[in-house]
């Protein structure tokens, strides 16, 4: 598969209060963006266990996006900080495994930032498209 025709499959974990609401606002504002990112709702980015991310890559996702509230704005006060630290550590592990750490990205999108959400999706999709498909830990024959 050439890199040009490759359409990445990306999973996003978005917190219910900010990023998920930002994605909703992009929708109500009818801001078009690429369809590659599929959203999974969690209550807080702090719920995102690094295992979820590894699992997504393992199952065949080419990239993972984690969206939380802006620093200081977390609905649960500090869950986004925990997420940020966990992902920083996870990125080191990914490098160790030979997986480009850019496949995992954390972003802050507020409930008011529909446009920013669409911009982030465009960027992530472009970035992962350039990186190509993952294969390092991908399960070859899926369920």
């Amino acid at each position, binding site marked *: 598969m050439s890199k040009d025709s490759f359409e990445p499959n990306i999973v996003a974990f978005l917190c219910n209060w900010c990023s998920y609401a930002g994605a909703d606002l992009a929708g109500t504002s009818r801001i078009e963006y690429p369809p590659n990112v*599929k959203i999974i709702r969690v209550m807080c980015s702090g*719920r995102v266990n690094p295992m979820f991310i590894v699992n997504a890559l393992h199952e*065949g996702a080419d990239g993972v996006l984690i969206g939380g509230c802006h620093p200081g704005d977390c609905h649960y*006060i500090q869950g986004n900080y925990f997420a940020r630290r966990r992902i920083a550590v996870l990125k080191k592990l990914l490098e160790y495994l030979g997986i480009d750490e850019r496949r995992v990205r954390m972003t802050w999108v507020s409930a008011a930032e529909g446009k920013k959400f669409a911009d982030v999706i465009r960027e992530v999709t472009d970035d992962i498209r350039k990186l190509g498909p993952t294969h390092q830990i991908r399960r070859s024959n899926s369920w």
Partner: protein
Amino acid sequence: MKIGVYTCQCGINIAATVDVEKVAKEIEKIPNVAVSRFYKYMCSDPGQELIKKDIKELKLDRVVVASCSPRMHEPTFRAAVEEAGLNPYFFEMVNIREHCSWVHLDKDVATEKAIELITGAVCRAEFLEPLEKKEVSVIPKALVIGGGIAGIQASLEIADKGFKTYLVERSPSIGGHMAQLDKTFPTMDCSACILTPKMVDVARHPNIELLSYSEVENIDGYIGNFKVKIKKKPRYVDIDKCVGCGVCAESCRLHGRIPNEFDMKLSKRSAIYVPFPQAVPLKYTIDPNNCLMVKRGKCGDHPLCKEACDREAIDFSQEEEIITIDVGTIVVATGYDIFDPLTKPKYGYGTCENVLNGKKVVFIQCVGSRDKEGNEYCSRVCCMYTAKQAHMVRDKIPDADLTIYYTDVRAFGKGFEEFYNRVKGENINYRRRELDDPIEVVTNADKTVVKAKGYSDIEADLVVLAVGLVPKEDAKEFSRVLNISQSSDGFFLEAHPKLRPVDTFTDGIFLAGCCQGPKDIPDAVAQASGAAVRASEPLAQGKVEVEAITSTINEDLCSGCKVCERMCPYSALEFDEKAGVMRVNEVMCKGCGSCASTCPSGAISMRHFAVKQIIAQIDGIVAHKSKGGK
């Protein structure tokens, strides 16, 4: 396992870009899917009936609805599922409108994405577990923050329903911006005449406790049981003794020397003052930034105010006091600030000399509003207050030469257009300009000149800027105290722009007045009434349902390491010394899941967001494509 999947067309909102028939057919192929249907409006009565009928007739175990955002209709469908006898948490919702049909143009692509998202939800649904909703009792008291017209209205209405209401106002008197106005558009009612009786009602109401000159410091807890820390700033006046006679202010060494904020600094006051004569409470306050005694500990040889007060109300030993109150619900009515025209030098504010005795008056509208580089929103009141002011100048100076630079006159309220027509007929020169056209106020040989593109320059005696409304300076910090969000314009964000305009995303906290966005007085009052009703509902019920989505600990796996304890911002996790394990206080837990992601033993699980549920969803979404779904 029998799963029912229902794909909504949402009229054409979804159906225009997602081939729902194809979606339904594809989803039917997934194991465990007993029925897969599509319908025009799943949220409508017949749509819900469809689900209920299937639950009963086909004995469904789980229900998946693919429609709009769960932030909108999840409660609707949970209720429907529950009515048909299924646990409401055996329901899963997929957002194929906001996250799919509204943001993609290509029908094939959007249809494929919808199938992937729904596959994820179906896989997750299999692992959903029944949850029990918990009820907690409600403290039958309310807190209203902000004593402007919105806060006054909300307090009176909650108190009238029979509930104790605390009204916290940061300044020495309630009344807010409305107390500063002379006349109100479009009826030209005297502002004080309609406001001050309400202020007095607040002071007299047996159910209202007014905490003036106080600020909300911190809010803990949850709907029904908020714990609020309030800072009572020292007035240096014992309000039980002060009768508001004003002898102290007369005797103050700084009498008539301090600009009075209430009059936009056009008049002068003393260091001990009431903002205006109709203040409620009518109690004097010492301004700590100016009082010599407070600032330097010395006021001549002795403080004259203290000597003058024969009731011995003045007390320089007063200190800041923190009190804690318990309330069930909160109404936020913190209001707005005025746009600062100093930030736009082109209007000459602060640089051109004030000339207040002339007859040539120019009004410039949309200052700090409808500005693509600044505040993009319309402030909704400036068109009408400009018309009001022009009318008042005409009334006082019949031969004045009046010009208004406007872009669009927005006279949308009841009686507004009629008022605008009346003012236009008073020989007032309305000059239309484009928003982006240059306009400038400059000083030219002692004259103030207004230069606007397409019009001859005007040498004005007085230029009036119709400044817009902006969020309170500390709106951001206060949104964090309240744990609510701001919209992109900086005002507080309502839970739904149309259907939940007074609710916030934090249960038990409601919005009234301009803190939610610019409003005129009738709109602020109407919203305050709405917020009062919403805030009274849980108080009247006496109990509320709280989140069933909490963490839970498998005591067999818990090693008692206490790592989770520090992660919980709500102190919901406690170590049981006897058993040597952690325990969850389910009422305190808000369900964020930070502890579950931290537990090194995997002993903590999140209800409704359990590992197996999320992993199944990931598998469904990702593997659908990997296995060649396309």
